[in-house]
């Protein structure tokens, strides 16, 4: 197993390697001679950005972790305006953040190829909603390429740059979790000389205010141009190498399978043993190349569109077929589910239903049997790591507010504070939303602090937000709360890293992949904005954290407490690399009274209950030595002598 960095940079055309879809896309961008890459991490897109971070310097590419998707989009867009090949990546909800610039910039076009990689998350494995980026693309009139395998994702990345440059129009490369987080055999292609020599490429912005200043008079001109362009692209895509017709030529039945659904359809057909069928493999769900569809439809009597999430392809084809007065039966979402991710089982079920075939597995029986098993299986949701500083922060917040406050929170690992026993998250909407929601709640519950009419029954609002999220979209919300005289406590859970998406750096530490960033301390920002109370605490000192929060709650106005301690997972990773040891706690069974305070209020995953001995115990392989348990236990039963890992 070679290192990812090596494989992505390997000058070995034809070599087969095993790469994650996201890593394959990074390789594709290098093969396409990319010059500038900017992104904010978001699962399932993050590994593309992380891979670019690892290889950028060695390939002469400028790469940055931007503070949010909108500024990342603007950074890459401007590079593309300057004639360079540029790329940004985000998760589906990230496109919402970038949407303002995205929608407006479409009409301005690009000079160098501009590719926006958007990773959708059907079934919402790590997301707050299930939006289909293809709908956005159609809305904005931007073409979408959708791969059916990790290898195709790499090839499509190259093609996306070419298509974008040819039409001077931005292009979306849309993946889903099962492409981004799937590993497959990837055949390496040629790397351009400039990438091999790590030669940084510089662009040239040619001023043109009729194009780059989006005033209404220009925008009015852009809109018809966009529509004209998209029709030209539709023509072009009929010949796109990622679209093809396969199967039996004179079949009466056809299946249209966009993106990854093609993979599931292939498996389903093999599994069902169906051969008398024609398949349209569609790598371009928008705009659908009608010329190709027309060729495909020739001779067919019935067609099924097997598509994940929204009926994007279906609606285009049905409208087109209606206008053409085609007498072909076209089915889609009547049979194929519109929610959650596509699977082989779902494809088999849809095709079997469409063709009137028996299922190859008796799923009714299997599901029934499994229902009984499920009742036996205890839930195991993800949890805050052992030694996670957030656990201590939540613990202190709960204690200081006696559990009686409203707790808006945000997007990050700390959203897990929702789970028992902490139960310290009441709302989570979107990145940076905690401060905005906290302000709104405060105004609604209590009124502004300088208002003549205020509620006598004051409700306490404590918002939590992570460091990266604070810089992402927390800043304008904080300014708003301070400006409008809110009465809230904002606890910034600063763990020095963007932990949930895989330890990316952010302005809190100032580190960048190239080590040339500048640190922006959160407390300085809060002070400069005019917060009424600002303090910094170490959450590993639970008592001090609790006291500080108590003090902050006494202050009228916006209080900001920065609860700062490095991410435990990140720290342990570093310590393991350096072969450093950490203390391991154990329960002194003589002192443990079996009160379960540690389990019922603190909830470290390393602590469990020994039913036989009726005492708490520590799983030594999971203890990361923070000592929080020792601070929480009323009987001093957690000790650390001797044990080290």
């Amino acid at each position, binding site marked *: *197993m070679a290192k990812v960095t090596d494989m992505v940079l390997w000058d070995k055309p034809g070599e087969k*390697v*095993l790469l994650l879809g996201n890593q394959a896309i990074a390789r594709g961008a290098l093969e396409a001679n990319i010059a500038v890459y900017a992104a904010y991490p978001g*699962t*399932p897109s993050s*590994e593309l950005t992380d891979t670019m971070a690892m290889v950028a310097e060695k390939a002469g590419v400028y790469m940055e972790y931007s503070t949010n998707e909108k500024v990342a989009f603007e950074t890459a867009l401007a590079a593309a305006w300057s004639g360079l090949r540029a790329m940004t990546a985000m998760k589906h909800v990230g496109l919402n953040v970038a949407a303002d610039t995205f929608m407006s910039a479409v009409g301005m076009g690009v000079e160098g190829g501009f590719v926006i990689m958007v990773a959708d998350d059907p079934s919402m*494995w*790590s997301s707050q909603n299930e939006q289909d980026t293809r709908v956005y693309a159609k809305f904005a009139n931007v073409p979408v390429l959708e791969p*059916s*395998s990790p290898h195709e994702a790499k090839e499509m990345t190259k093609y996306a740059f070419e298509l974008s440059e040819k039409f001077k129009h931005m292009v979306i490369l849309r993946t889903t979790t*099962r492409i981004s*987080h*799937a*590993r*497959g*055999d990837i055949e390496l292609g040629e790397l351009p000389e400039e990438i091999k020599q790590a030669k940084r490429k510089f662009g040239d912005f040619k001023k043109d205010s009729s194009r780059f200043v989006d005033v209404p008079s220009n925008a009015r001109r852009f809109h018809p141009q966009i529509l004209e362009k998209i029709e030209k692209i539709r023509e072009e895509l009929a010949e796109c190498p990622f679209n093809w017709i396969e199967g039996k030529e004179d079949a009466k039945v056809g299946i249209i399978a966009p993106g*990854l659904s*093609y*993979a*599931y359809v*292939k*498996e389903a057909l*093999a599994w069902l043993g169906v051969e008398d069928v024609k398949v349209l493999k569609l790598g371009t769900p928008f705009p659908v190349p009608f010329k190709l569809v027309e060729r495909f439809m020739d001779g067919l009597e019935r067609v099924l569109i097997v598509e994940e999430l929204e009926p994007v392809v279906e609606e285009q084809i049905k409208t087109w077929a209606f206008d053409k007065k085609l007498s072909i039966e076209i089915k889609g979402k009547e049979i194929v589910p519109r929610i959650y991710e596509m699977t*082989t*089982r779902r494809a*088999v079920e849809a095709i079997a239903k469409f063709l009137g075939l028996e299922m190859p*597995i008796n*799923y009714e029986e*299997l*599901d029934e*049997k*499994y229902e*009984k*098993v*499920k009742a*036996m*299986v*205890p*839930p*195991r*949701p*993800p*949890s*805050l790591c052992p030694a996670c500083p957030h656990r201590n922060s939540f613990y202190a917040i709960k204690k200081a507010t006696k559990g009686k406050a409203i707790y808006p929170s945000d997007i990050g690992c700390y959203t*897990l504070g929702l*789970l*028992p026993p902490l139960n310290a998250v009441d709302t989570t909407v979107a990145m940076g939303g905690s401060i905005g929601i906290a302000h709104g709640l405060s105004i609604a519950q209590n009124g502004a602090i300088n208002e003549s009419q205020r509620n006598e029954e004051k409700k306490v609002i404590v918002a939590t937000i992570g460091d990266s999220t604070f810089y992402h979209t927390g800043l304008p919300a904080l300014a708003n709360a301070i400006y409008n005289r809110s009465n809230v406590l904002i606890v910034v859970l600063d763990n020095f890293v963007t932990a949930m998406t*895989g330890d990316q750096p952010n302005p809190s530490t100032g580190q960048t992949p190239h080590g040339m960033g500048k640190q922006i301390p959160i407390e300085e920002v809060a002070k400069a904005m005019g917060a009424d109370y600002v303090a910094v605490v170490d959450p590993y000192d639970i008592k001090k954290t609790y006291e500080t929060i108590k003090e902050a709650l006494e202050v009228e106005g916006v209080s900001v407490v920065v609860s700062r301690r490095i991410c435990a997972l990140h720290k342990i990773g570093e310590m393991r690399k350096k072969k450093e040891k950490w203390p391991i706690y154990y329960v002194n069974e003589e002192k443990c009274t079996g009160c*379960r305070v540690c*389990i*019922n209020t603190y*909830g470290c*995953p390393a*602590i*469990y*209950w020994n039913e036989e001995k009726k005492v*708490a115990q520590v*799983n030594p*392989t*999971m203890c990361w030595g923070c000592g929080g348990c020792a601070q929480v236990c009323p009987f001093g039963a957690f000790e650390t002598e001797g044990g080290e890992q």
Partner: protein
Amino acid sequence: MREYNIVITGVGGQGVLTASNILGWAALRAGHKVRLGEVHGMSQRFGSVISYVRFGEDVYGAMVPEGKADVLMSFEPVEALRYINYLKKGGMVVVNTSPIPPVQVSMGKATYPSIEEIKKVVEEDFKAKWIGFNAEKLALEAGHVVTTNTVLIGALTQVPEFPLGEDHVREVIRISVPPKAVDMNMKAFDLGIKAAKEILGL
């Protein structure tokens, strides 16, 4: 071979991803088409995790369909039960029998089934073969708890008709672990093989 499907389950942080990667590379080196489906992001944090390893001539999607896994390999007993619906009839369950009780269980809000109960479901309801042993104990015997996944992979290679050669898989482990840990992992691998052979009566 059209397809071979392995489902690997466990608790986030146990090394499920590493194990699937090792098997994926072994399959790639054996000339197969390979697909691995993995769990990333927040779901990895000490929660229940599942990953898919598929190889052969005819694999496309990254997920094994329910009822189609040749082997279900689990790092934790109750996690084998959680994903038992992926196993095909007459499939194999390779499982580490050392439990990690979830927080819900410690809080007294859920119960953890006994190993015997889990085994009964596997053998009687799902008509599958149970290769269960304390892999963690063997890993500690080999030198460190982190080799639990190597122990299990060793056992996996003994599953009847497992399509990747024992030495082939061993070679991938050898080049994937840090040089200092090679001997320890080879020992873990052998202990896994031995345990499986005993259970299977080989």
